[in-house]
């Protein structure tokens, strides 16, 4: 790839793939933008008419929007907090030499392979159910009133479920980072009189910053669009206590059959995601530079 000639050839050969990806992205985006300016209701097909920014103003002034925005940010932030801290601790544990290491590591990744709908249903019906759930059973065993997670603390419960799914991912990335730490550095710190805790704070944590950055960036992308877990557990409720932007867009376009409003919500979500991305890159993107 060094000569000018080979670079031009490379560009030519890349072009079809790039063009196809571009269409793949641009066409749905353009259609969504187009729909977002139409009065387009599925109950009245063929009656579409130009609506200007009406859809946007309805969506943005809807009180549900602000709740959804807050919920989205809480969901992303909460899950990130749990997975990064929990993942670090889990990685520390997995990094220890122990019997059956390979098997334990595979078991730890397991939640990541379970489909979101399935794991959310398992949590809903087998753990958090106030009558049959494991938690209710445990509460009753010690004489406490069972707690109805999904109606008393719907958002926190969803955060818990989603965090459970993403913990293995974070733990795994952080574990590989931990294993790439130079052993002599740890030994040098040990000779320098740093105890276990100081070594963790001064050597391990700085070494992990880049991996943590990767975890945060990747997870944020996926956490902004959490949907299945909400759909199968709380349906966004009670009220809209656990509705995030993604779910609000769904409710708008498919429960209220308002494709125009839903599309406007979708575009708002895209813009929000970009704002979050810019913020993140500003804050932690420099960690990625070598």
């Amino acid at each position, binding site marked *: 790839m060094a000569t000018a000639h080979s670079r031009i050839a490379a560009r030519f050969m890349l072009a079809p793939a790039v063009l196809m990806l571009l269409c793949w992205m641009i066409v749905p985006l353009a259609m969504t933008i187009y729909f977002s300016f139409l009065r387009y209701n599925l109950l009245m097909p063929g009656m579409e008419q130009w609506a200007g920014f009406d859809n946007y103003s309805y969506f943005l002034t809807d009180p549900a929007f602000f709740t959804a925005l807050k919920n989205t940010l809480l969901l992303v932030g909460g899950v990130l907090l749990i997975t990064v801290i929990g993942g670090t601790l889990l990685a520390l544990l997995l990094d220890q030499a122990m019997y059956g290491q390979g098997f334990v590591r595979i078991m730890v990744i397991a939640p990541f392979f379970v489909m979101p709908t399935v794991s959310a249903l398992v949590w809903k019906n087998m753990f958090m159910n106030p009558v049959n759930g494991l938690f209710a059973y445990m509460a009753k065993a010690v004489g406490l009133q069972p707690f109805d997670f999904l109606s008393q603390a719907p958002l926190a419960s969803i955060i818990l479920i989603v965090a459970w799914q993403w913990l293995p991912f974070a733990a795994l990335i952080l574990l590989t980072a931990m294993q790439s730490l*130079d052993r*002599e*550095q740890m*030994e*040098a*710190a*040990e*000779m*320098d*009189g*740093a105890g276990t805790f*100081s070594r963790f704070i*001064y*050597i391990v944590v*700085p*070494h992990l*910053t880049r991996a943590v950055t990767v975890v945060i960036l990747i997870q944020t992308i996926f956490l902004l669009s959490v949907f299945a877990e909400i759909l199968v557990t709380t349906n966004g409720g009670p009220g809209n206590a656990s509705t995030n932007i993604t779910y609000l867009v769904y409710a708008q376009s498919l429960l209220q059959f308002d494709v125009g409003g839903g599309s406007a919500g979708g575009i708002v979500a895209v813009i929000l995601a970009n704002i979050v991305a810019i913020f993140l890159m500003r804050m932690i993107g420099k960690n990625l530079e070598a």
Partner: protein
Amino acid sequence: MGQITLKQVTKSFGNTDVIRPLDLEIGEGEFVVFVGPSGCGKSTLLRLIAGLEDISSGQILIDGQDASHTPPAKRGLAMVFQSYALYPHMSVRKNIAFPLKMAGMDQAAIDAKVNGAAKVLNLTDYLDRRPGQLSGGQRQRVAIGRAIVREPKAFLFDEPLSNLDAALRVNMRLEISELHQSLKTTMIYVTHDQVEAMTMADKIVVLSAGRIEQVGSPLDLYRHPANKFVAGFIGSPKMNFVTGPEAAKHGADTIGIRPEHLKLSDSGWAGKIGVTERLGSDTFLHVHMDGMDTMTVRTEGDTALKYGAPVHLTPDPACIHRFDAQGKTLA
């Protein structure tokens, strides 16, 4: 202070004995060099002294105190690693200050010490850089700085110069010797470069397969190697060994002659010139002998001899080393 005694120290990893029962006395202020072929256990021995590995049996005394099971931080020793092991996310200043910070020293005292060490090591201009922005030699000096500020009882070096280029290695070799003269602290230095061993050591410990082959001053080892292994290991180019009837003439199983003790002559052992290596001051001639192994001869200055020219070699009779069948030196 800085006297280290090893008593019957052994180390095994699983079933492999890496260090056989080993006794060693390291005096205060001595510069001791461990040499030996790769895999003979030099690093392991150093790490045992540092406390980074547990000894399997035996005893380590530091200043007369039993330190066999003392954690590394409490032994009062400082180590310089082959890979430098600097903390990449800390500035040079923070790197050097790290052990002092861990010891809970107050900031003013730390600053004074760090600045002092930086001055000694010519690092003052680099204090705010990160290790990644330094050259190999500078990194090495930072690693040494981090060791100095602790004022340890002894310094442990594990092949500290092996990542440096030849010119820098010569410089750093001098700097470390200079440092030893000014600090007068005990230093234990691992290397497999025998020029480093010969030039820096007060005392050389030659190791082979986890055993001590010989301990002595550089010239002592050069002149009076205890066995064939030490004779072949110390000295560059390597000693030439001759077996068979020529050795029997001297009443030995094998005789050894150093390249500098062989002369080109009109009669004697016959052979043909092989490759000649010209260093300027000296020339090494590799001679293919008739009925013996190839020998190396060191001659001063240049030589006019061409590849394939017939020559005769005569050893200096006063400098012939004699070994028995077990490789032990015969008196």
